[in-house]
């Protein structure tokens, strides 16, 4: 395929992915908006007013960046996991496999589709949050960079999950038992400076902590961890996981007999 044809193939796949999640918007775009509105009302307004300040900010202002990031992570991941697995399950993945489209285009198409949903939901949740607080952004470029990279990283994660999955249960195990606990313990609702030293050390092993903190730094200008390190770690994870996913795809893992 020449460059023009490759670009058409990639755009076709991305557009197809966007059409998929917008077609089923009551399943994909509406639920996170409602859930996050509940978080803002209950944790931000009702309970948050009794908690007081967190790292020098109102509790509502503190949790908004974390909740936006949580939506981006879960939606990026689940979009690719469910879409790719559904393609495997319905065998429509064969449409792509018989075509001359290179594997990196297939992988990138699904990742960009996952990012479109993750970032789309992120924008919706940000807009919902504006009903509850006035958002300010200390470092807009850094905020955008970190959310885009995080969305890419978890889209790749969802792809690998779907490649390895044999049944629909297999694509809900990771989000339920790994992603959700790591997100909740990743400093979305609290600053790790509140924790005893030992648990602060344990928290530092949680990669989601770094993403939430850098994202919050972009909004508020405060972070529990060094921003440069966090960005480097996210970028390194993306390179490693993209390579792993591509090798698995080249070998036909889970899709070729």
């Amino acid at each position, binding site marked *: 395929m020449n460059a023009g044809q*490759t670009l058409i*193939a990639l755009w*076709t796949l991305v557009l*197809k992915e966007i059409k998929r999640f917008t077609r089923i918007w009551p399943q994909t775009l509406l639920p996170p908006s409602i859930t996050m509105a509940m978080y803002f009302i209950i944790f931000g307004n009702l309970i948050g007013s009794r908690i007081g300040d967190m790292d020098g900010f109102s509790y509502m202002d503190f949790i908004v960046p974390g909740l936006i990031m949580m939506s981006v992570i879960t939606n990026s991941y689940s979009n690719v996991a469910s879409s790719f697995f559904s393609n495997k399950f319905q065998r*429509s993945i064969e449409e792509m496999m*018989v075509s*001359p*489209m290179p594997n990196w285009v297939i992988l990138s198409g699904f990742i960009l589709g996952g990012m479109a949903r993750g970032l789309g939901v992120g924008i919706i949740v940000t807009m919902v949050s504006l009903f509850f607080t006035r958002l300010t952004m200390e470092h807009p470029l850094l905020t955008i960079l970190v959310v885009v990279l995080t969305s890419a990283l978890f889209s790749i994660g969802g792809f690998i999950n779907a490649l390895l999955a044999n049944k629909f249960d297999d694509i809900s195990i990771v989000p339920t038992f790994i992603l959700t606990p790591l997100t909740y313990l990743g400093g979305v609702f609290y600053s790790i400076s509140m924790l005893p030293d030992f648990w602060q050390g344990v928290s530092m092993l949680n990669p989601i902590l770094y993403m939430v903190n850098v994202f919050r730094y972009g909004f508020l200008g405060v972070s529990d961890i060094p921003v440069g390190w966090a960005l480097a770690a996210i970028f390194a994870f993306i390179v490693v996981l993209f390579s792993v996913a591509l090798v698995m795809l080249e070998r036909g893992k889970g899709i*070729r*007999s």
Partner: protein
Amino acid sequence: MAEPALSIRGLTKVYANGFQALKGIDLDVQQGDFFALLGPNGAGKSTTLGVVCSLVQKTAGSVSIFGIDIDKDFAKAKYQLGVVPQEFNFNQFEKVLDIVLAQAGYYGMSTREALPRAQQLLTDLGLWEKRDGNARMLSGGMKRRLMIARALMHRPRLLILDEPTAGVDIELRRSMWEYMRRINQDEGTTIILTTHYLEEAESLCRNVAIINDGDIVRNTSVRQLLAELDTETFLIDLAEPVAETPHVEGFELHQLEPTQLSLLVHRGQRLNDVFNALSEQGVQVVSMRNRANRLEEMFVSMVKGSNQGAIDQRADASSGESSDAENRESRS
């Protein structure tokens, strides 16, 4: 001579569980041919085609499509290839038009280029009116035609049809035959067809390979195969019931119903002799037809013979290895 549309050499496939689906097959399909690949379930037809279109990874051997080795430039080879699989493999929740346009996009065709092509193919296959409907709302026959339209979007020179008319009613099957004949004859598209309807292969195809138990047991022209047919069975309908089976010297007659006989005719025997003898016995024939499709008789006897050989071999061996049937079971 032009490169074969498809050339397979020593193709072997051993699945992860040890089942050998293909045992080093060689096969050539010439450009412009209408070729039938026949064989019983689990014989290796779909595995062979799966390797050709990259859905199955081969263990050994080589495959070239119009002279392009798939190990060297599979992407280029794939441009020559259109695939209509045995099972529906499109997203049932997508619109008909979106499905064919997306497939064109995967081959690098812009929407501007693909849309007129989609309109022409969907119109030819009677689906244009359904273009904005969800694919899951289509009937079984329409879904099959949708897969044919999808496979032809990028104008492939080799079209692989894996049981394209399975579950399709007779009228629709005939119209699909016409369509396939047209793209083979008018557009010069080489077609490889697998089918269980041997009448289909006899009616459409010029050449045939019979695959059984991972080996090609026969590869010849349909005409040659039919010329080798030694016997043919006819069903004879009688005007009046007969009390006992009439006897005709040199022919095997069996009574199936009070007014129906089966007649086995060997090569060189004359049907006139039967009619004369029946007439002399006061038996009036009102109609006669083939009991089964001629190719089907040949196919059954060939596969039966081949399987009998395999069974004999297994009976001789005392290794206690599991049978192919068990292997197939565990593979599925």
